[in-house]
């Protein structure tokens, strides 16, 4: 399919609060193509999560246009165009891991046989085969987050939206999950929108890095990564990687994001 997967034109979103309007997003223009891995980076309040939620039709933009697969976000949500991964795994404690992954499939009305096949498939994809019968509390935080990614992948939407999915994990686990996420992306060819506040994470994962800054939330820089698709972890010591990370840091500083 030709055309962008996600396209924002002059997008603005203002929350009306007791202290007056808050401009969470202002004049955001961005085009995301099929198979892109796009990271949104910036400090708190820069609107990166709000933008992701707007794409998911969990927030309503107040200005401009936003299309997802050529539809409005609302239509895209109703046609189940994306899987969403939240910062916390949010697994249901009363369901097993397999039961949690099956949840969207039950709601969307897949047949029992289909459910079983898909659950097995995605659990394998996130390297959790054999853990289907365990309850969430029996798994580590990293494994729980992998299960929540499996849940988002289960119904095979083309778009995966991830809101700081590894933010609560320690760095060693995070590195491993980053590596696995890249492999998964390579195997599935999904379009991924990924919110983070870690510069190395953004540079390591993305084909494009969107640098944002707050008050009002806006895009200050969009960097197309020249890194190859195959990325071993030690690519992070390469000159190219450091150069991109530097540009991201400069972008954040230019937006007065980190007032040190």
């Amino acid at each position: 399919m030709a055309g962008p997967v996600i396209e924002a034109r002059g997008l603005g979103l203002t929350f009306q609060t007791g202290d007056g309007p808050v401009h969470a997003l202002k004049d955001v223009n961005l085009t995301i193509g099929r198979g892109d891995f796009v990271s949104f980076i910036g400090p708190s309040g820069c609107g990166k999560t709000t933008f992701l939620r707007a794409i998911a039709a969990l927030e309503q933009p107040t200005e401009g246009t936003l299309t997802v697969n050529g539809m409005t976000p609302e239509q895209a949500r109703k046609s189940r165009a994306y899987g969403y991964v939240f910062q916390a795994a949010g697994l249901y404690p009363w369901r097993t891991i397999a039961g949690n992954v099956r949840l969207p499939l039950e709601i969307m009305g897949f047949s029992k046989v289909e459910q079983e096949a898909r659950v097995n498939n995605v659990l394998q994809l996130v390297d959790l085969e054999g853990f289907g019968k365990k309850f969430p509390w029996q798994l580590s935080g990293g494994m729980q987050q992998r299960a929540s990614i499996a849940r988002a992948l289960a119904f095979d939407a083309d778009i995966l939206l991830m809101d700081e999915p590894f933010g609560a994990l320690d760095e060693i686990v995070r590195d491993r999950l980053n590596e696995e996420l890249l492999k998964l992306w390579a195997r599935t060819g999904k379009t991924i929108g990924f919110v983070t506040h870690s510069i190395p994470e953004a540079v390591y994962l993305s084909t494009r890095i969107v640098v944002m800054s707050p008050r009002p939330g806006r895009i200050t820089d969009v960097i197309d990564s020249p890194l190859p698709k195959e990325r071993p972890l030690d690519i992070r010591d390469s000159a190219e990687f450091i150069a991109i990370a530097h540009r991201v840091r400069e972008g954040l500083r230019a937006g007065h994001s980190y007032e040190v």
Partner: protein
Amino acid sequence: MKAVVPILTVLAVIVALWYAAAVWMNAPWERDQAARAGTAITFAQLLPLTMVQERPVLPAPHQVAVGLWEGLAGQAITSKRSLVYHGWVTLSATLLGFAIGTTAGVLLAVGIVHNRAMDLSVMPWAIASQTIPILAIAPMIIVVLNSVGVSGLLPKAIISAYLSFFPVVVGMVKGLRSPDAMQLDLLRTYNASRAATFWKLRLPASMPYLFTSLKVGIAAALVGAIVGELPTGAVAGLGARLLQGSYYGQTVQIWAALFTAAFAAAALVALIGAVQRVTLRRMGMAR
């Protein structure tokens, strides 16, 4: 064993205090008797007498124990003097009332969570209903129902339900609202219907809250059934035993009925606790 020692210690202290209080409260009657007979009575003579009075102000623990034992085991269970018979009369009203109250409570909670008008209108009435003294409203319910030809078990069960629905409403509303914004957003991303959200998220999430409410509710249901027996002319039930006891000054009978009610309440709460443990374990929510 470590858990038993403190419990027995507390029990022993209570029994000792009870005996002391029994002596202190029953002594005036013995002194009065002695004064009327014109004899002097020493404390050593008085002490054993306070333990065996026919109608003591405060019966000694062993008198209550004997009363309980005779009431529970010393009669045919169909006898009007059997505490098993009276206990069952009260228990059946309690259980029916509890079932009605729980059903009503859960349905009201579901309505409150899903309907804004009900949210705004029902809760104030539910709270107001509990501020009315049950002793005042119980005779009204009995009289009104009696005039439309309903008598026996059902009026008592309705009073039970009146007391037991409230904790269930409060607990279930809290339980059904316990899923956080992220959980609800997740289901929105699946475009889940309200029915799916209810069955897959809200209802299972509310289970721990439900069981806590049920424990409070069943104890309240028992109180309701006993109160419901007071204005009915005291024919049968633990409430009737309490009332008869107070008519005829049979304090031992009152205390025996009170203890039967307390044991029944403890057993019912323990039963719900057992169901809770099994259910939550099967749901995987107990570790």
